[in-house]
């Protein structure tokens, strides 16, 4: 099928989907993807883009507060957020019942089915009786806007408490998260996922007991992130799980809540969320690809056991996280001074697996992939030329020039990249530049030293190859730590080749050329494949 036909089909499928969605009968996305494997990649992109491109104004709420909503008389406004307004209200028939009434924004296009889904969701929540989950009394629709009435909590939120009092002692933090995890275990057993757990959604009673509020009812209304106004952005992003940060709605599940509980525990212990970048895209990027700073470095009072539990909840791969029940059991063990039953610090095997496979600072990956291939071939070409120049005893200045010209390519390619505000990219580029400038200077100084020791320049150049090979190996090792574990392996090959080059120095330049071309293109091509796979990843989570 040619591209044009494919585009036409995609447009038709999208139009059908969007119109069905408007009338409240959108097919299940997974089903749609399964039905149209030919368009699956583009459709996934569409859903991802829709989820990830932020909207500034989700939907308007009326300017004036109404006098009453449903069976409730409005008394005062308690707060206003991205998702709507919260009022203090009193039930008409039972005036002693004072509630917090939340009026929620929803898309104007939300169809009938979505409305009923909201009501059903709220009803499910209303049945979710648990001492640590805020009780929902009633849900409904008033003037086309959804509302629900919930228990009024008078002790503020955990976010407020954190702001005012800072981190908790580790034991108190463990106790608090254990209570929350028990509540979430109950919700998960009823097949309810919160999806937006954060300190601002943990409300406190007048006695300070925590209760979970704001189960994400609105998410289903139009399947888009609508909470993009300032407060919500500042509040929500740091607690998003990697699958949410990547916009993979289908991959969201109970494990997403576990991640958020881990992030809350982290903040209770250290006073800051696990990831906090210079801006929101930076934070999202960190959530997806970086490891959190171990809590004990930020608060030395945090013990190994609690740190292991916390970090296990913050695993990037949902299958590596604990289940709510496991989290409860481990926190109880920690409180009773017993060893963890589920959370384990990573073993050596995990460590090596992680070290070799995990790409770090993926932000610069696409650029890195092509640069690797380019640099590999530039060094290969230079070394082949050096081989012939040495063989025919070409002029010495030319040898220097040829051998060091690839550095100019490598450094130039990095310097000419447009300026970026992304801190990890700036850092990545700085690391790469320092590694290769250091490598170049090291090689040059070694040849100069040999040149002083041996009268013949050809011998000096040939003798420096084993050392250059070791230096390249070291440079690749440094890149392994910074960018991608596979560099360790290529580094090892280079170091292994040093004695071979010393055995028969005449062939060393050709061996170096071969290694440069092989390692550059192997790493570059695998990186490219990795980036492509990341883009087309649909549902990598077997538990979903």
């Amino acid at each position, binding site marked *: 099928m040619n591209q044009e036909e494919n*585009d*036409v089909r*995609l*447009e*038709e499928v*999208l*139009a059908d989907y*969007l*119109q069905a969605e*408007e009338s409240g009968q959108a097919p299940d996305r997974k089903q749609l993807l399964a039905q149209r494997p030919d368009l699956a990649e*583009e459709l996934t*992109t*569409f859903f*991802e*883009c*829709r989820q*990830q*491109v*932020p*909207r*500034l*104004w989700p*939907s*308007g709420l009326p*300017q004036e507060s109404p006098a009453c909503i449903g069976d409730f008389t409005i008394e005062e406004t308690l707060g*206003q957020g991205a998702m709507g307004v919260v009022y203090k209200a009193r039930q008409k028939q039972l005036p002693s019942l004072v509630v917090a009434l939340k009026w929620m924004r929803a*898309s*104007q*296009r939300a169809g009938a089915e979505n409305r009923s889904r909201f009501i059903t969701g709220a009803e499910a929540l209303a049945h979710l009786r648990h001492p640590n989950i805020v009780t929902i009394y009633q849900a409904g629709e008033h003037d086309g806007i959804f509302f629900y009435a919930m228990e009024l909590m008078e002790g503020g939120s955990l976010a407020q408490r954190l702001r005012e009092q800072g981190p908790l002692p580790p034991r108190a933090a463990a106790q608090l998260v254990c209570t929350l995890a028990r509540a979430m275990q109950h919700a998960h057993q009823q097949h309810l996922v919160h999806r937006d757990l954060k300190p601002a959604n943990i409300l406190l009673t007048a006695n300070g007991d925590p209760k979970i509020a704001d189960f994400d009812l609105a998410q289903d209304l139009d399947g888009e992130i609508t909470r*993009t*106004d*300032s*407060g919500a*952005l*500042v509040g929500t992003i740091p607690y998003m799980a990697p699958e949410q940060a990547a916009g993979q709605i289908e991959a969201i599940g109970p494990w997403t809540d576990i991640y958020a509980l881990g992030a809350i525990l982290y903040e209770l212990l250290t006073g800051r969320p696990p990831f906090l970048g210079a*801006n*929101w*895209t*930076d934070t999202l*990027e960190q959530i997806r690809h970086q490891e959190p700073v171990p809590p004990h470095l930020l608060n030395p009072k945090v013990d190994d056991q609690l740190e292991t539990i916390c970090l296990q909840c913050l695993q990037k791969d949902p299958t590596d996280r604990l289940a709510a029940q496991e989290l409860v059991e481990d926190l109880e063990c920690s409180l009773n001074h017993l060893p963890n039953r589920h959370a384990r610090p990573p073993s050596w095997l995990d460590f090596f697996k992680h070290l070799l496979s995990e790409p770090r600072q993926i*932000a*610069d990956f696409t650029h890195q992939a092509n640069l690797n291939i380019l640099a590999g071939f530039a060094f290969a070409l230079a070394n082949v030329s050096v081989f012939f120049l040495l063989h025919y005893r070409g002029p010495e200045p030319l040898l220097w020039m040829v051998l060091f010209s690839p550095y100019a390519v490598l450094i130039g390619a990095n310097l000419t990249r*447009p300026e*970026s*505000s*992304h801190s990890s*990219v*700036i850092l990545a580029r700085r690391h790469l530049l320092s590694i290769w400038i250091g490598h170049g200077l090291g090689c040059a100084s070694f040849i100069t030293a040999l040149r002083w020791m041996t009268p013949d320049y050809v011998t000096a150049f040939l003798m420096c190859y084993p050392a250059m090979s070791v230096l390249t190996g070291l440079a690749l090792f440094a890149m392994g730590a910074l960018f991608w574990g596979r560099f360790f392996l290529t580094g090892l090959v280079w170091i292994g080749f040093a004695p071979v080059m010393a055995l028969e120095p005449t062939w060393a330049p050709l061996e170096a050329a071969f290694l440069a071309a092989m390692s550059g293109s192997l790493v570059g091509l695998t990186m490219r494949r990795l980036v492509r796979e990341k883009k087309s990843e649909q549902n990598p989570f077997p538990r979903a």
Partner: protein
Amino acid sequence: MDQGADQFGQVLEKHRGYLVALGRLHLGRRLWRKMDPEDLAGDTILEALKNRHQFKGSGENELRGWLRTMHLNNFRDALRKYWKELGQQGLEDSLAQSSGRLRDSLETPTSTPSQKAVRNELLDHLTRALTQLTPEQQQAYFLYREHEMKLAEVAKHLGLSVPATAGLIHRGLKKLKHLLQEEDGL
């Protein structure tokens, strides 16, 4: 005009597309045909040129911030004037929508300075990314996403078939996502 003004004028011209997109983003959908965001952008550029000595900052970002505030204030004035002229002709909801958006962008009453900064950053990213879409993609994006028109209505407005409009929205979103990520060097 002196040379400094000429240079400043050239710098300001680069931001014209940004100001137009900013205007469209804030304009309620039914006002779209009544008020011309391009005229308003032109007015702001002239005003900025006149008041160029008041700009104390340096660098692109500060200039854009200065222009944004000036443009949104001008926009609000134009809206008020329009409101007065209009009387009772049934565009109130659209006017209220625009005013609400302007209030969000200019005042953000409940937010702290850092929250305001995050919002401004988001507004800025989105607006700048929008300027790089084709005019059709821009229109489809505004009408469908920010103004929540139904797909068939957007198609009618643009004079296109419904599938073509869906395709336009898809390509626009794809490009926006790419641009928003590019902006941060991703």
